[in-house]
Each structure stands twice: as structure tokens, then as C-alpha cells.
């Protein structure tokens, strides 16, 4: 069964939905993934990303829709017949089996004889650099090593599709960076599709060829990391991409892409964000700016007045938190240490400000 699925050109999700009682965890997910792609499903917890992954793996039946591997419908198959590799958030290593037995389990279940299985297990262990730990039980390994065993176990069967469910969330920061590179390297070596679920935008940006941002069970935006980072189409997505400042105002002018807002008497200009039109003069809008791009300046026409509430040193620059005259919380960057309680003017280059209008919340 898995052999026939091994070579394929595309994976297609067609209106995949999943309900839990009256709650729609996943709504009408449609997505085409080509062979060799690394796709990240990104979203906050409860957005349906794990549900989507479990539906693809066959661990959760879909409520509506279908999943296709080329011309073959696979959502009607059980997880054991799909032949996908899955890496679980808690690794799910078999505690009573050695590393070697864990990695060899998939081959054993496929009835592959020992003579053929042994070199494949060796190769998978070498890929994750764990040859020396083969005889140990999972409980004797560190978290990072356990994670690598979980990856080796999933890839040893050379699956057409590798599914990863927040695989790095239980590791410390340094190990996470190392494992990111390993995962990318392993993906390149396999040449298969990897679908990676995460709530960490840094992981998604650094790993994926394409990012699917989910919110409330729906796709908010699909695009390359560069597209999502520069031009998030929704305020939600912008939030995820580090646009931490959300400044409400009223549109006072518009010249093609450039929108000018009145924010409590101050003027703020930015680029029209999102795909939806709108943003007529007099309507409400929200400007989104990264803390990195909101600078403390001495005098500016495109800026807001605020009072510094906290400031901290982050190596190259100072990052601060301020309260605008209208009461909004602002996060900004400064080249000097500003006194808490002092007045500050905060400005941003209009090209770094995204304005989302009422039709595009």
C-alpha cells in the first residue's frame, strides 16, 4: 500500500472540515502541496492546525471534504494504510523499546526482513546522528536526543509525507535552533513533503517554503515567508508576524497605497495593508507597526506623543513601552535610555506601517 503512495506529485486538501460537536475546529481547508515542499501551518493554540495535521495523518476522521494524493483519495484510509511519518509533540517514543527497536518499528510492521531493515535503520540513525545511542532506552536520552529518535523513526520508512506536530516546543532555545537546521537538512535529503505545525513564527519563517496561517479553523493567508513577513493580509497575520503595535485612528487621506490616519490629533501615514479595498476618508482603521520600526524621535510630522512607562536594554538598542496620549500601549525602539515618565515622540517610516481598514479587521 505505502509503496504505491511513495511517489507522487501533489497532496490536495479539498474542503477538509472537522467538527467537535457543534464546534467547527477546521473549516473548509483547501490546499495544494507539491512534492518537495516544506509547508508550515502557523497559528495560535486552538486555531485548528493540529486538527488539520491529525486529519491528514488519519488519526482524526474528517467531517467533510477529501484528501488526495495525486488521483488517489486517502482520507478514507486508516492511519496505518497511509504510510506517512509523524513526529509528535511529546515524541511518543515506545518506552520499552531501545532506540534501534523504536526506529525499526515501522519497517517491522511493513514486514521488511531483518537483512534489509538493519542498513536502513543504520542510515536513519546516521541521519539524526544517534548511532552511538542505538542500544539505549528512550528514558536514558535527553530531550533533544529523544526528538531525533522520533524523527528517525518517522523517516526510516521513507514516507511520501512527514508530519510534524510542534516538534521543537519542548526543547530549550539553543537546541531548538540546532534542531531547526537538522529538520531542514533532513527534509532536503528526503525530497518528500513536510507539513510542520507550529505556533512560533520564527520557526515557520526559517523552515518553510510556504506558510499557511490559520485562525479559528480557517486559512487567513498562504504565502512564502517573505510575503507574509512584508505584507500580511490580515491584522491577525500581522500580529503573528511581529506587528505588535496596533494603533486605532480615523482615515484622513488616501493617495493610492498611502493612507493617512488621524490618531488622537497626531498624524500617522502608512501603506494600505490587506487585499480588501476600503479605507475611505472618515472611516476607522488600525495601523500596525513592529516595535523595531517605531522609533523614538525628537521631531517628526508622522508621529505620536506618548509617555515612557518602561525601558530595557537589548544589546544594540533600547526597547521601550509607552502610553500614548489616547491611552494606547505602544512598543518602540530607541537609541538612548529614556527616563521612565518622560515624554517621547514616536514615529515610523510610512513604508513600515500597515494600515488595515474597517473592511479588513
Amino acid at each position, binding site marked *: 500500500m*505505502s509503496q504505491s503512495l511513495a511517489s507522487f506529485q501533489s497532496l490536495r486538501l479539498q474542503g477538509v472540515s472537522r467538527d467537535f460537536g457543534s464546534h467547527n475546529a477546521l473549516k473548509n481547508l483547501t490546499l495544494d502541496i507539491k512534492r518537495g515542499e516544506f509547508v508550515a501551518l502557523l497559528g495560535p493554540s486552538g486555531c485548528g492546525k493540529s486538527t488539520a495535521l491529525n486529519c491528514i495523518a488519519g488519526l482524526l476522521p474528517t467531517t467533510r471534504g477529501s484528501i488526495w494524493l495525486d488521483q488517489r483519495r486517502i482520507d478514507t484510509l486508516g492511519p*496505518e494504510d497511509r504510510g506517512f*511519518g509523524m513526529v*509528535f509533540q511529546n515524541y*511518543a517514543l515506545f518506552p520499552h523499546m531501545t532506540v534501534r527497536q523504536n526506529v525499526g518499528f515501522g519497517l517491522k510492521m511493513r514486514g521488511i526482513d531483518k537483512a534489509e531493515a538493519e542498513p536502513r535503520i543504520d542510515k536513519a540513525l546516521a541521519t539524526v546522528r544517534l548511532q552511538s545511542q542505538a542500544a539505549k532506552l528512550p528514558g536514558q536520552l535527553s530531550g533533544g536526543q529523544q526528538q531525533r529518535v522520533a524523527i528517525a523513526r518517522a523517516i526510516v520508512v521513507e514516507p511520501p509525507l512527514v508530519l510534524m506536530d510542534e516538534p521543537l516546543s*519542548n526543547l530549550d532555545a539553543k537546541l531548538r535552533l540546532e534542531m531547526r537546521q537538522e529538520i531542514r537538512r533532513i527534509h532536503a535529503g528526503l525530497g518528500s513533503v513536510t507539513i510542520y505545525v507550529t505556533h512560533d513564527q520564527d520557526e515557520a519563517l526559517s523552515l518553510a517554503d510556504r506558510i499557511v496561517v490559520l485562525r479559528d479553523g480557517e486559512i487567513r493567508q498562504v504565502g512564502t515567508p517573505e510575503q507574509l513577513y512584508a505584507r500580511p493580509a490580515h491584522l491577525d497575520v500581522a500580529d503573528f508576524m511581529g506587528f505588535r503595535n496596533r494603533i486605532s485612528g480615523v482615515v484622513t487621506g488616501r493617495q493610492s497605497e498611502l493612507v493617512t490616519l488621524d490618531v488622537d490629533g497626531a498624524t500617522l501615514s502608512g501603506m494600505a495593508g490587506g487585499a480588501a479595498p476600503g479605507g475611505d476618508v472618515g472611516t476607522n482603521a488600525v495601523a500596525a507597526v513592529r516595535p523595531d520600526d517605531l522609533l523614538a524621535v525628537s521631531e517628526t510630522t508622522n508621529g505620536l506623543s506618548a509617555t515612557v512607562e518602561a525601558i530595557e536594554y537589548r544589546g544594540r538598542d533600547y526597547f521601550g513601552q509607552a502610553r500614548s496620549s489616547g491611552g494606547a500601549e505602544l512598543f518602540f525602539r530607541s537609541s538612548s535610555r529614556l527616563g521612565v515618565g518622560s515624554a517621547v515622540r514616536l514615529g515610523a517610516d510610512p513604508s513600515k506601517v500597515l494600515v488595515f481598514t474597517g473592511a479588513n479587521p
Partner: protein
Amino acid sequence: MTAASTRDDRIPLRMRLSARGLDAVTLLVLPAVGLMVGLFVYPFLYGFWLSFHPKDGLSVVGNYLRFFSEPRLYETIAKTLWIALPVTAINLLAAIPVAFRVRLMRRQRLLTTLLVLPITLGTVLVAEGLLNYLGPQGWLNRTLLLFGLISSPVKLVHNYWGVFLSLVITGFPFTFLLTLSYVTGIDPTLERAAATLGARAASRFRHIFLPLLIPGLAITFCLSFVQAFSVFPSAILLGAPAGPTRVISIAAYEAAFEEYDYSLASAIAMIMAAVQLAIVGLILASRGLFYRGPASGGKG
């Protein structure tokens, strides 16, 4: 100055003791220790001592010699095992599939409550109920007769099967609840991981669940067995206490309260304990052949 500082550097006895886990909180175990000594250790040791002082005072091991020379007495070991071992095995084998189903259910509490009821009712009430239900004039026989399935009532009480059935009924909830706690203690993502690796339900059970369950099942078997081995009320009420269900506790009871030979009764109790210990020891020793670590899938 130096003398004073060395004295001050010394860690107080109280802190040294607490570093070894001995502090005021440790005193809280005293009531329990008192109860254990008063209600278990002392009676046990006294019984042990008493068993070596037979009524006739001839030989120190006279009671044990008598037990193993009289068929009426030594046969009770085999008779009790013949009831207790199959009952325990059947309860355990029945509990495993039920536990596997119940593990996936949402209303576990309702079912658990229903199952605990037979335990709270006690063996005597269950025995009385079974006497009526399974007796020659009971519902079961009447129904079978009515539909012509049998021509004369099936004898299910006052023999081996009466005791057997009552022990299954009263023992199952206990066995089941223990089994359920072990089954639900296994990380469910292990099964899902096995499924994505191509293992079908039977393989998942054989390669994942069973090896992780065996230590728990061994303990469950031991506890259920000890319960069944000490059967007394149902062996008298539902069995044939003079014949095939003359279990070892009946022999001890007769020695103590019919012959008034407390010494022999104590010796029988000691033999009973030894047989139980032997079976439990055997099961727990074989458990050492299997994996005995945590049943979860990792997380550093």
C-alpha cells in the same frame, strides 16, 4: 574566635536529620505504624508463635505434620487454588478488553459507579441474590425450562460453580478498576504513533500495550488472587462446604470454632499465607523479565 566559629559552623542536629528526610512531619506516620503493629504485626507474630505450640504439646511442628498428613486438611490447598486461580484469570482476561473499551468512553464515572456497587454490597448479599437467581426455582432455571432449553433444572448452586460465579461477580469490579487505571496510564499518543507507523490494532496491542501493561497486570493478578484465595462466605453459602468447595479458610474456621484448637487454626492460617506468598512471589518474580519503566512516550 576560631573556636566560636567552628561551633557556629556545625549544622544543628535537627537540620541534619531533616536533610535525611526525618523531621516533625515524619511523626505523622506514627498512628499508622501503631495500627499496623497492633492489628497486623502482633497478631501475625502471635499466631506464628501459637502455631508451634500445639494443643497436645507433643511436637513443635505437630500442627504442620497433622495438616499435611490428613487429606481432609491438605486437600483444601488444592481446592482453594482450583477456585481462586481460574476465577482470577477469568476476571483479568475479561477486564482487559472492557478496560480498553471504557478508556475511550466519556461517561466513565457512571460506569465506574455501577461497577463499584457489587463491591460495596458485600459478598453475603451477592451470595444470597445468586442463591435465589441461580437456584432450582430461580429465574434462570425457570426461564430455561419455559423455553424448553433444558428438561430439568441446572445445578448452579451448592457446588463449585456457585462459588465460582459469585467470586467472578464480586471480584470483577475490583480487577477491572485496577486494570482500567493501568490501561489509562499508558500515553495514548503511543498507540497513535504505532498506527502511523503501520501497526494494525492487533499489532498495536501486542507490541505496545501488552509489554507496557504486564507489570500492572501482574500486580492486579496478585491482588485479585489474594482476594479470591481467602474466599469464605460464598464458599459456605453457595458452595458445598463439605465437598469440592471446602476451601482452606473453612478448615481454619472449623479448627478454631468447632474443635477449639486455636493452635491448629493458626498453623492453617500460616500455611494459607505461605501459599499466597508463593504464588504472589512467583508472579512478581516473572514480572522482572519485562520492561518496568514509565509508560509514557518521553518529554526529556
